[in-house]
């Protein structure tokens, strides 16, 4: 099996699971309990929090664990919007659904939303943001890197505009964290979402960075966990795994970037050389190291994925959440693709564990599959 859908989720790294195991077995105490097994659990969480904080250049007190990247997004967006007076909020047309649907929800509940357009490479134009800002703008949320096409936004420049207008700036960094360097001070963002399962950690754990002084309402009410801001008995093992995965990702960041970037570019070149009528989606260089997104004309994405799966190749046609839905990717439409081309996209997301041999195998299998589907397609004429 060749797994090249690391943007959808990643296997837990063996070192990470090792660190989690004690908290799935004998160290099972509730971190809120004052006795030994409780204190051990609490310390483990503190340690993980410090790891995440360090990875982001943040203070430990600014890191709040959540149950997912989606929860971090929901909390950031609804929490900031609801604590503000202004009723105008800004995001982009290519956000992940966790952001997009949170904005749509606010849009149905008294807020006015501006969705910034992107160019053909998926980039937001800072001038567009400048033009969109109003007196009553109370939140700007722009993702660091896109989950489908991998395009990396000029967050520093965009956050600077927000700062000039004293508007809280949130970025969904779920795809970027652990894959490219990120520093909240350098970027100048006020809120930033991350998720463990995209970097070799477990599913069901995320975190939200909230800059000190940022006004945000509570999302989950109850016990005093997470500095009293996010109730729920902590997913101790999950949090420990997240901390460990973040630490590993940071330790190997440069090495991993070099490796996956060269694998990505090698693969892109080979596909372009061997399959006609294909289009690379996303920015050629400002893109996530592991991300490849191709549209193959005349064919539909799901069929392509199923055929690859039959050959033991696990890839995606966009974000995992949209598979099974009938709509073509909102991201591909936003970068200007025609509907039928948007339907025919393939996302390959490499991790540092993928190899050149795997890339070669994928290309070798892909060529006849694309041809076969084209031969079956009423849109294709040789």
């Amino acid at each position, binding site marked *: 099996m060749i797994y090249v859908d690391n943007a959808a989720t990643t296997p837990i790294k063996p070192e990470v699971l090792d660190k989690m195991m004690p908290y799935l077995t004998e160290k099972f105490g509730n971190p809120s309990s004052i006795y030994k097994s409780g204190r051990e659990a609490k310390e483990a969480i503190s340690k993980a929090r410090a790891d995440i904080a360090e990875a982001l250049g943040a203070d430990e007190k600014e890191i709040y664990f959540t149950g997912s990247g989606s929860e971090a997004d929901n909390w950031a967006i609804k929490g900031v919007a609801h604590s503000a007076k202004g009723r105008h909020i800004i995001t982009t047309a290519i956000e992940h659904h966790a952001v997009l649907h949170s904005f749509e929800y606010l849009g149905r509940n008294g807020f006015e939303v501006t969705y910034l357009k992107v160019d053909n490479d998926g980039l937001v134009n800072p001038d567009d943001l400048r033009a969109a800002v109003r007196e009553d703008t109370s939140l700007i949320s722009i993702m660091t890197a896109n989950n489908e096409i991998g395009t990396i936004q000029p967050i520093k420049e965009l956050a600077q505009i927000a700062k000039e207008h004293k508007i809280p700036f949130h970025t969904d960094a779920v795809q970027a964290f652990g894959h490219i360097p990120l520093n909240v001070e350098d970027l100048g963002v006020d809120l930033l979402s991350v998720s463990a399962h995209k970097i070799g950690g477990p599913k069901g754990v995320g975190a939200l960075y909230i800059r000190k002084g940022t006004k945000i309402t509570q999302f989950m009410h109850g016990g005093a966990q997470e500095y009293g801001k996010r109730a729920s008995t902590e997913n101790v093992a999950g949090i420990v795994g997240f901390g460990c995965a973040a630490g590993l990702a940071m330790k190997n960041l440069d090495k991993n970037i070099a490796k996956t970037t060269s694998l990505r570019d090698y693969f892109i070149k080979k596909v372009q050389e061997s399959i006609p009528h294909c289009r690379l989606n996303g920015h050629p260089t400002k893109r996530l190291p592991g991300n490849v997104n191709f549209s193959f004309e*005349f*064919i*539909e*994405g*799901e*069929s392509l994925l*199923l*055929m690859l799966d*039959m050959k033991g190749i696990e890839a995606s046609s966009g974000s995992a959440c949209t*598979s*099974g*839905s*009938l*709509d*073509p990717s909102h991201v591909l439409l936003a970068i200007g693709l*025609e*509907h*039928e081309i948007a*339907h025919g996209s393939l996302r390959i997301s490499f991790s540092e564990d993928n190899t050149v041999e795997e890339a070669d195998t994928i290309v070798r299998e892909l060529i006849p599959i694309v041809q076969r589907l084209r*031969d*079956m*397609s*009423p*849109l294709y004429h040789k």
Partner: protein
Amino acid sequence: MQYSQKVMDHFANPRNVGEIEDANAIGEVGNKKCGDIMKIYMKIEDDIIKDIKFKTFGCGAAVATSSIATELVKGKTIKEALSLTNKAVIDALEGLPPVKVHCSVLAEEAIKSAIADYYKRQGIDPEPIVGCSCNCTECPCNE
């Protein structure tokens, strides 16, 4: 979303793929926006569908429903073919995930569309015979 074995079989080994050079009935349904297009070619003789082929742009279910639908009507009379329902297509495939049911509708309509074309070529108004589905360019995903 999980396809049945039967769907996967018809997807992996679709029956009757291709075109018929001298087809006397051609139907196309679906549209690009929706992401599913089915084109059916038939050779009808003495009211009987002697041969049938399809070309489909679409998901796994779209391919599988096209394939099974062609099998179900091949060698049948026009009347029998017109009585093919999307439900029969689903049953023959041993089920479809709910989000893919529209593909079975598309397959039913593709058959009807080809038969309508057959009547038109002969100067017969297909509407009373085939029903109104003969010009289906609206796909169910826009509902």
